[in-house]
């Protein structure tokens, strides 16, 4: 069931276009992440859905009903604010029941519903506490319970984890997902943090300058970015720029600066040869391994010199200089291998299918 639909929504502030021709749909129980740098229009999109702003063009539909002109209190949206925005003069129970009281929920059933919500977010017995007596993580749970209490059609999470410290963020990520799926909430997560977007979302939309750049499953966005912007925004990448030629069997040859020749996967959508950027993810590059190319499948292999090594616990990050002077970032799982910090000669290899071709300068 299609719970939320944005259809060609455009929002302008004077001459500034905050959101331009944005369309997407969210199904019941689905989690959609809106990802982008600050000023990309994701927060305006959130305000269009919650009703604080009305679109200049296009429409916001809840289960097929146009929400045009409906104020936030005339829609049924659950909104989790980045700073939680708990009412400081009310107890936890009063905060959670606020929406129920305002929406004329059956008075006798309010305490039951509040207890249910507090149990859901694992805050049983916190009813009479004040927001300022709670930790950041607990405050967020109260805010989530408050947002979900009225059984909203759409739940909007604004940077839900960014106010928490790294360790708590890790724990809460899975819990948040479990809570949302327990109530089968149709959710939109707005964030600038790619980890947050990819870990929470069933589907991710990358936005830039008010426009949707790409939409897809997290793995698809990561493995198959359609533009240089998306590839750079999500994860780390090494870039080669050059001319494509000799496309055969879905593999083309790239002649890049510094005399580098490599085989790349030919994108389905842009068969024209010419100038392209090629992205290789750091973890797709292998160091020192002599991978035999099977049959005629081409393989990229070059010599390189290690310039720096950083141990990050589970991972090793290496900086490798290749002929022509370009520095590549390479990530390896740490399994006891040892590299010299600088100067060691290594061979590096990577598969053509791990070379993602995007239009130059996109």
């Amino acid at each position, binding site marked *: 069931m299609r719970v939320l639909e944005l259809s060609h929504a455009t929002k302008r502030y004077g001459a500034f276009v905050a959101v331009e021709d944005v369309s997407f749909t969210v199904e019941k129980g689905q989690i959609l992440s809106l990802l982008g740098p600050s000023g990309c229009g994701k927060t305006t999109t959130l305000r269009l859905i*919650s*009703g*604080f702003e009305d679109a200049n063009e296009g429409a916001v539909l809840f289960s097929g009903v146009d929400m045009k002109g409906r*104020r*936030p*209190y005339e829609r*049924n*949206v*659950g*909104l989790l*604010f980045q*700073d939680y*925005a*708990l*009412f*400081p*003069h*009310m*107890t936890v*129970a*009063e905060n959670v029941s*606020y*929406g129920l009281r*305002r*929406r004329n929920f059956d008075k006798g059933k309010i305490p039951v519903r509040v207890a249910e919500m507090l149990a859901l977010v694992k805050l049983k017995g916190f*009813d*009479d506490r004040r927001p300022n007596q709670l930790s950041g993580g607990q405050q967020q749970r109260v805010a989530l319970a*408050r*947002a979900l209490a*009225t059984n909203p059609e759409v739940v909007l999470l604004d940077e839900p984890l960014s106010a928490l410290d790294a360790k708590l963020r890790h724990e809460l990520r899975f819990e948040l997902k479990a809570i949302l799926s327990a109530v089968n909430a149709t959710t939109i997560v707005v964030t600038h943090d790619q980890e947050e977007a990819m870990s929470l979302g069933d589907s991710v939309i990358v936005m830039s300058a008010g426009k949707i750049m790409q939409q897809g499953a997290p793995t698809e966005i990561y493995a198959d970015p359609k533009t240089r912007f998306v590839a750079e925004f999500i994860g780390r990448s090494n870039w080669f720029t050059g001319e494509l030629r000799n496309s055969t069997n879905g593999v083309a040859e790239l002649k890049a600066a510094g005399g580098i020749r490599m085989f790349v996967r030919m994108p389905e959508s842009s068969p024209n040869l010419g100038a392209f950027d090629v992205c290789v993810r750091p973890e797709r590059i292998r160091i020192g391994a002599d991978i035999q190319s099977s049959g005629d499948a081409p393989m990229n292999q070059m010599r390189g010199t290690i310039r720096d090594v950083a141990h990050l616990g589970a991972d090793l990050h290496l900086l490798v200089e290749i002929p022509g002077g370009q520095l590549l970032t390479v990530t390896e799982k740490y399994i006891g291998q040892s590299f010299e910090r600088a100067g060691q000669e290594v061979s590096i290899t990577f598969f053509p299918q791990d070379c993602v071709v995007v239009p130059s300068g996109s």
Partner: protein
Amino acid sequence: MSTTKRTVLLLLPGFALFLAFLALPLANVVDESFRFFEPGRIGSAKDAPYTLLNYAEILEPAYLRYFAETFRFGVLSSLIAIVVSFPIAYSVARQRSPWLRKLAIGFFVGMMFLSTLVRVYALQLTFGSTGYAHFLAGVLNVSPNSRFYTELIVVFGLLHYLIPISVITLLGTIQNLNPRLIEASQVLGASRLRSHLSITLPLCVPGLLSAFLICFTLCLSAFVIPMVLGKGKVLFVSNLIYARFSEIADYPSGSAVAITMLIIALIAIYGITWLVAKGFSNQDRGRSS
């Protein structure tokens, strides 16, 4: 030298100044208020006997009227001032254009620099027989010389003085209020009015209280406004004190009135603060049960 000693030394000049020019003169007034006054003299005699007569006098209806009048105008004008100032302060605090916000704040700060005498005569001209606001008497169907019309002008005079100050006091309170709270309330189904009533207002009570107390204190000590705009019909305790001191040179009586006023004002201010604080904690308990 230890830090404590140094702190004490640094405080000493201020403390000496306070003692010499604030505390001792006040003690002088207290002493004077208990002295016997011989009509015709200027102030009490050097070795005049102590008496409670000056305080007993205050209980007479003629004197009590001044107190009642001062408090009536003080409470009324302060209430009107905060009711009028709150929406103004809110719109200034939430003004999106920084240029307009600065302009508005500058205007209210500038208003505070205006001499009371200038305000008073400006209002007298406005409400006087040639002023544009003269029609008000006609609209209200009262004589421009009636007591009601005079009282009205005094209230306007006080408001002219109180509104800029209470706007600036409330501005801080509202600026400290997280605007997301109102948005959270609206998303949870409360209309804008309802959100202001259940979120903005309760959270602004401390600010409203201090604005009210500042206004109230300023009203109690108002002197020029009732003197000029009150035309002798509206007189505050300050005017009474002035009359006792300057017109008949009865310093002991003037001092007694001043001390009584000070004590009543302190009791009123502490009383109001205590009542509001108590009301607040009761309300909280009521809600959580």
